[in-house]
């Protein structure tokens, strides 16, 4: 009986898809009917247990503590599988069946969406979409002004035209490519104890004072942005759009980098999280590109490491969860359930304790203690010790977060992690820089 019904609903879903192909406009109506059939409580309760959703994404977002909590709350199984963005892109393109929910960095999505292996998310089905922070949802800053469009501003890749489109829509539509989840503002990490003075500009990365004591991240698309921030603030170069450089701009940037490298400015180019931690902790490097949790990791060793906000602003990044094209029927419904759970607060609070922000700050904040809320979101000094998600002390009472409040940090993003149109040329030139 149940089996029959499921089979029917599958057939229904398939029918809808076919109709969509025939007539894109019917998609809204069709999908609504589909969810009505599939969402019937009887079937739901009885088939739900057998569902397993495979969530794949980078280690700092796809965390098994989160998927376990979700599995317990939702009654079906969510499995966490980590793959860095480049590996996830490869999976999405060539082995889409191995992924159910793809946790994409926006720049990765910018590339992978074209494969057509992800299906749009119907915004109407995401309950907390309206509560989402404007910078993720609308590309607007907190004061209503436009956020920086240099690089992959999430809004640029957030919407699509129809259920079958492989393109991005310039304006908001009813279909989202992914559901924004976590994001942060990146800057330079410093060993303030070894530097001994105030650092306020990206230009310091290339200051001869720190010759042989700086490092860049060796992910070409991100490393070149950090370099561009520094070169621009030194006044050497002026970019039209750091997030989408012209060949000429790439040439100038790489030539400047090669010159700096020959002069011995760099100690290393790191590729992994722990490399960046070790470089900093061992004193090999005093100023470098860094992720927020890496700074935390250095700090937790009792070393004075600061994630210093710069006057030129931050380099922002974010992730969104996408549904793979092959999800259908009850599994698709379960995926929507999971997406809604994700924005309901528990995950937002968990991730806040790692230093990241939730796309729906309201629910995340509600799940934090007052002390945590003050420290992570409001820029207030901690009233008692701040613990990470696993209960280790991260910061002592009395200290406050580097860079201040949520609005101060996220409101000051100058550019976004991205992939450029001249991507291939840029990688070639970056290879030249690294091997020079």
């Amino acid at each position, binding site marked *: 009986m149940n089996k029959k019904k499921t089979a029917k609903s599958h057939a229904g879903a398939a029918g809808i898809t076919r109709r969509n192909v025939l007539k894109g406009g019917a998609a809204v109506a069709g999908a609504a009917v589909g969810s009505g059939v599939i969402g019937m409580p009887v079937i739901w309760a009885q088939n739900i247990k057998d569902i397993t959703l495979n969530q794949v994404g980078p280690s700092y977002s796809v965390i098994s503590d989160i998927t376990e909590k979700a599995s317990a709350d939702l009654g079906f199984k969510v499995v966490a599988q980590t793959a860095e963005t*480049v590996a996830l*892109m*490869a999976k999405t*393109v060539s082995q889409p069946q191995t992924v159910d929910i793809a946790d994409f960095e926006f720049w990765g999505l910018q*590339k*992978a969406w*074209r*494969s057509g292996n992800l299906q749009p998310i119907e915004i109407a089905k995401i309950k907390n979409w309206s509560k989402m922070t404007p910078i993720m949802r609308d590309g607007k800053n907190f004061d209503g002004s436009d956020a920086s469009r240099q690089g992959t501003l999430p809004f640029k890749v957030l919407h699509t035209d129809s259920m079958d489109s492989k393109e991005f829509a310039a304006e908001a539509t009813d279909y989202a490519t992914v559901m924004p989840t976590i994001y942060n503002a990146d800057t330079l990490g410093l060993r303030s104890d070894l530097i001994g003075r105030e650092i306020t500009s990206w230009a310091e990365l290339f200051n001869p004072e720190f010759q*042989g004591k700086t*490092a860049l991240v*060796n992910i*070409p*698309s991100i490393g070149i942005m950090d370099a561009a921030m520094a070169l621009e603030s030194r006044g050497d170069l002026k970019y039209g759009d750091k997030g989408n450089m012209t060949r000429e701009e790439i040439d100038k940037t790489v030539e400047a980098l090669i010159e700096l*490298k020959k002069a011995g400015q*760099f*100690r*290393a*180019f*790191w*590729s992994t999280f722990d*490399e960046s931690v*070790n*470089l900093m902790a*061992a*004193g*090999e490097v005093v100023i470098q590109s860094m992720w927020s949790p890496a700074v935390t990791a250095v700090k937790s060793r009792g070393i004075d490491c600061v994630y210093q906000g710069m006057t030129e602003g931050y380099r922002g990044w974010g992730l969104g969860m996408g549904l793979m094209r092959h999800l259908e029927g009850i599994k698709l419904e379960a995926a929507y359930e999971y997406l809604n759970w994700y924005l309901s607060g528990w995950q937002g609070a968990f991730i806040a304790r790692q230093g990241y922000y939730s796309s729906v700050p309201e629910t995340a904040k509600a799940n934090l203690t007052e002390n945590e809320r003050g420290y992570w979101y409001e820029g207030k000094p901690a009233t008692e010790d701040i613990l990470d998600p696993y209960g280790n002390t991260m910061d002592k009472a009395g200290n406050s977060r580097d860079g201040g409040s949520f609005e101060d940090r996220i409101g000051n993003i100058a550019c976004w992690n991205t*992939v450029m149109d001249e*991507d*291939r040329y840029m*990688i*070639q030139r*970056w*290879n*030249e820089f*690294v*091997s*020079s």
Partner: protein
Amino acid sequence: MSGSSSGSSSSATPYLQVAPLALIMIAMVGIPLATVVLLSFWESDGILIYPTYNLQNYIDVLTSPVTLSLFLKTLKFASITLIFTAVIGFTCSYFLVFHVRNLRWQIALFLLCTIPFWTSNIIRMVSWIPFLGREGLFNTLLIEAGIISQPLDVLLFSDFSVILTYIHLYTLFMIVPIFNSMAKINPNLIEAARDAGASSFQILRYIIIPLSKTGLALGTIFVVTLVMGDFFAVRVMSGGQSASVVSAMKNEIDQLYYPQASAMAVLLVIVVLIMVSAVLRIVDIRSELAR
């Protein structure tokens, strides 16, 4: 008649004998390699791959100045590593074979050489980092001994540390084949030479080295191919400051430019094949091994 039938069955026997290995090689080496070659003629825009069959990837690779500098850099690593591993490998084997006469000791010392290899490659490599670092053991030692006042930066995240690691990792691949060749040298030969009035150097030059060259050749092939194909050691030990052919390939693969990386891979295979065939031309390993 019966003779011819047994003849036909025996003519099939060698083919049956090589069949298992041949099948494995075709499945595990032949097909992937053919795929790489095929892919290298296709086109990619960073996500989708188009089967277009043109030479653009090769034109890009061959006209880029990066390619030459990458290959030169990798060849430099390979040749320096080769010289050091050959000298160390030869010396160790010589000692084991000609100075340690007791078989039990020979085996014991030989095993001693392999002890570091009981741990993972990565552990052995990474353990150099805290030793050579700016605040590392070696620099601290030198500073406390008053030999230097500033830590030596060149020790870590430099070509020096990369080559040091290669030598450390790959010397055993030299020791084993050389040891094997030397152990086969008939001691009577050396005694005869000595009786005929040869000096130790002459014995080394005219007997031991020529008779060890199979081992040297095999070791060379191991070391050269290992260094040419490495990207991890060069990345970690140079602190990402040096690139090898494969690390550049990895950057392209990460961004899903598989065809471009394939063209580079084909080029690398060709270069390594030339090097290996050059070695085989100098030393006829087959006949030497059959000896």
